[in-house]
């Protein structure tokens, strides 16, 4: 259900950057460690963007794999599922290098051809 609140936040961000222009695509980077359901996000985004400049905008969703790094042994690996422990030393002193992302990366805007691209 939080995909609804999150969709509203995505819409607000896109509209702010669109600056009054029509948005045809929104690109989103979501880390593997986030609990976001892509289908649900698509559904709610379609719902909240109705009658806005983002209506009908395509959602381009990139899922970023989770990468962890063990501090003591400097091993880096992709985490598909727990444990959050180093595969080499079994220690838990690990950093999340990637997988927590949750950002609007870019949007595509449509404008009249006579307007010079910025």
């Amino acid at each position, binding site marked *: *259900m939080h995909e609804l609140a999150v969709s509203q*936040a995505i819409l607000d*961000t896109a509209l702010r*950057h669109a600056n009054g222009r029509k948005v045809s695509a929104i690109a989103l980077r979501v880390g593997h460690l986030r609990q976001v359901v892509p289908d649900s996000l698509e559904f709610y985004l379609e719902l909240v963007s109705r009658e806005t400049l983002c209506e009908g905008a395509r959602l381009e969703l990139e899922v970023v794999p989770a990468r962890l790094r063990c501090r003591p042994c400097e091993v880096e690996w992709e985490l598909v599922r727990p*444990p959050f422990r180093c595969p080499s030393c079994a220690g838990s002193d690990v950093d999340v290098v990637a997988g927590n992302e949750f*950002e609007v990366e*870019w949007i*595509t805007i*449509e404008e009249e051809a006579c307007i010079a691209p910025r």
Partner: protein
Amino acid sequence: MHRTKVKVLEGVLDANDTIARANRDDFDRADVTVVNLMSSPGAGKTSLLEAVIQRLDGVRIGVLEGDVQGTQDSERISGVHTPSGAHVPVAQINTDPSFGGECHLDANMVRSALSSLPLAELDLLVIENVGNLVCPAEFKVGEDIRAMVCSVTEGEDKPYKYPLMFRACELVIVNKIDLLPHLDFDLDELLGGVDDVNPGVEVLLTSARTGEGVDAVRDWLASRVAREPQLA
């Protein structure tokens, strides 16, 4: 029609996080330690809080209750008192004015409730979030500490199903342990899962009903209050 790609590179939750930081600044100024207490519905957050309050003197606690609807929880908290007879300040947030009722508290909801709490007179504020194991983990509200309750009636596999929540917390309280003799619940399996998802996280076992382990929760909270001024 001309199409242009516009770089955004903005966190989806940035707006929430900005307000959360403003809340945190207010909490810091008032010198109050804030705990965001989360769990699934019915895990026993309110019962545990009642039990803690009944054992807590020397720390001035306040409670902010978050629910989709209803004031049952804030009424329950109002009904208990500390050993020295003090009632604790409590405020209630209902999330239902928004579309369908939000399943979590966000920073702005907490911000709007701050004026109904005497922050300057508190050492500790517990924000009891809406019962949900997914959404509250995504939304910071300005807390210093995140803690969760999971009860033994929920199943051992919850850490693997809700890793974001279990990873977000620095304390996991396993509640309703008085029911263990009646359940096919493998406590070791749960604890193993908790450790897989958040290695080394502190775990306390409680029964809010019998009072078992509640002193340890009280002491943990009290120690975090004493430890404050080392602010991030």
